[in-house]
């Protein structure tokens, strides 16, 4: 696991007595986009949320196996979950900006981590993040407007800007386009292309075309198991597993 940014070893997740993820192992490198696909309830979102320990907030969730970020055990007692989540950012299915100004939305992460010493530093960080999220030109004149006044697609890019403002190493995206129209979706996909190489990106999607468009490698989940994980082109043109083939050709899902 030399160049793996994130690597999972025999990871299982339980909700109470129910096994939601069953013995999943995979490596994700620092400069690729990995897509998770699979039918609803296959565990792909659950697995995504175990990567930055967002499952900690669910009372009866339990994780077995190890997840390593740069070789550090994410679930080790010494791991500071706050630091972990700052290093592994997340974008959610439904855009969820804070009911604060656009500026405050982006500045929140840097301010709680004390990343800016002066107001000027902060201005630069906010502008930088908004530029990288492709939102700067649209909002530069109204940074004081509430984040909730933006359109859905803009809100989602604001959430991406918020995530990259703390300069994470990995960004997890949980079906980031499922609540957006096709034009906004295209804009986000373009953005993912631009962000590739700078951050390792993991994206969960329902939309197989999207997976094919944005990712280099694709993982197919079914019933809590990792069925197949390989180069996106292989998965979509020449899957090894019968189940993968059935799913991507639309037999079920």
């Amino acid at each position, binding site marked *: 696991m030399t160049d793996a940014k994130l690597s999972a070893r025999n990871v299982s997740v339980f909700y109470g007595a129910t096994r939601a993820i069953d013995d999943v192992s995979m490596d994700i490198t620092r400069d690729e986009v990995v897509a998770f696909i699979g039918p609803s309830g296959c565990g792909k979102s659950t697995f995504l949320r175990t990567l930055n320990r967002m499952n900690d907030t669910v009372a009866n969730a339990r994780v077995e196996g190890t997840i390593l970020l740069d070789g550090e055990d994410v679930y080790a007692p010494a791991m*500071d979950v*706050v*630091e972990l989540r*700052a*290093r592994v950012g997340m974008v959610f299915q439904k855009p969820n900006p804070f009911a604060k100004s656009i500026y405050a939305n982006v500045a929140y992460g840097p301010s709680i981590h*004390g*990343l800016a010493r002066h107001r000027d530093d902060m201005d630069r960080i906010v502008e930088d993040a908004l530029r990288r999220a492709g939102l700067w030109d649209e909002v530069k004149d109204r940074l004081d407007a509430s984040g909730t006044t933006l359109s859905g697609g803009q809100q989602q890019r604001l959430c991406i800007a918020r995530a990259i403002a703390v300069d994470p190493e990995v960004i997890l995206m949980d079906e980031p386009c499922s609540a957006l129209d096709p034009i906004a979706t295209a804009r986000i996909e373009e953005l993912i292309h631009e962000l590739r190489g700078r951050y390792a990106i993991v994206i969960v999607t329902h939309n197989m075309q999207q997976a094919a468009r944005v990712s280099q490698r694709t993982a197919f989940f079914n019933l809590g198991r990792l069925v197949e994980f390989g180069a996106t082109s292989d998965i979509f043109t020449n899957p090894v597993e019968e189940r993968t083939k059935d799913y991507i050709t639309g037999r079920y899902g």
Partner: protein
Amino acid sequence: MTTTGLLFTIVGLALIGWLSARMRAAAFRRPAIQRFGSLPVHHAWVVALWVLGPPLTFLVIWSLTSPALVTDRVLASPLAAALPASAFERASILSDARALAQGSGGVFHPAAVRLAPAYAAAQRHYDWLASAAALILALAGGVFAFVRVSPAFSARWRLENGVVLLLLAAALVAILTTAGIVGSLLYEAARFFAMVPAIDFLTGTRWSPQVIDPADPGASLGALPLFWGTFFIGAIIAMAVALPLGLMSAIYLGQYARPRTRAWAKPALEVLAGIPTVVYGYFAALSVAPRVRDLGLFLGIADASSESALAAGLVMGIMIVPFVSSTADDALRAVPAEMRDGSLALGATPSETIRHVLIPAALPGIAGGVLLAISRAIGETMIVVMAASGVATLTLDPFASTTTVTKQIVDLLTGEAEFDSAKTLAAFALGLVLFAATLLLNVVALVIVKRYREAYE
């Protein structure tokens, strides 16, 4: 040192701790190595909490125990040898001395004047001890926390735990209050029952606390007439008014009224719930009671009282109307629409549907609401204090004068009596009965309402 001065000093120390910890943490923080580690401000708050927490906790506990310590010290002094042996007199002299020592004295007992300096001295002695202990705790806490400020120290999570502790402490205030109520009622009631047999109190029919025979206090402290009066006014007369008015109002507003009517009539009805009870009491005494008495005389009831159960009960019933109507409204609305539609589809009229389908289905919810309303009515104080009589009678006549538990508690405790006489302690025994009764009603009501909600979910 005065309390305020002490508090300011502690807060000042906390501020110093905050600033110095922040400076220390800012010096070793290297952004490049620990991008997401604890911030200087986290270290600062941890130190500040260590300065504030121990002395403040100590002072709270101290304030609960120190009065007893002070009294003991005064009693141990040679001056106290001259005190009378009677516990009553002793307590009253001590309380006068305390008042004098605190500079708020009013009643001058000669012995108290002599004892006051000793009291002040004892007070000073313990105040000094407490101040010193609090300051030492503050300093010790601050130093302990300050030496732990280091890059490896996870101040953010320590702070996190400190805040959670604070939240927990706030939540525990609720338990402390409950414990305080139960504890003080039980303690004072136990002292009462040591003087008066419980059986006399609970089943005796003669209540005249003005003249208590010291040899047999139970003979004039039989509370049965009070229990009956409370029940008669709160559960019978008030409910006879509130139940029909409240239920029918809920039916009209919930089932018949147009949304616009409902939108203004419901809040208007709730105005009744917002009027202070002292206003109801005044109204009952000023406007309702004389009319009720006139009505009684008109009906040929010779002993119609101007402090009748009926006047207090009527006004109390009006006060409870919004309470009954809102719980009844909730209960009626919780009945699934299919049940109502089914009845209407059979050709039943709205009133038939309400009477034969909705009310039976909503009955548990309505019953729960009525129990809660009764619990509120029997605990209501000001209306009966102002409109009901002080004379305890076991009577079924609504025009006769009747008294209640709450009215008697107020009467017993607002005289100039000794704090530990049978008379004042009787108020706590009454309070205990009242507390137990309302608690029981609330619990039963909640259980009924909960079961009812579950039935339709």
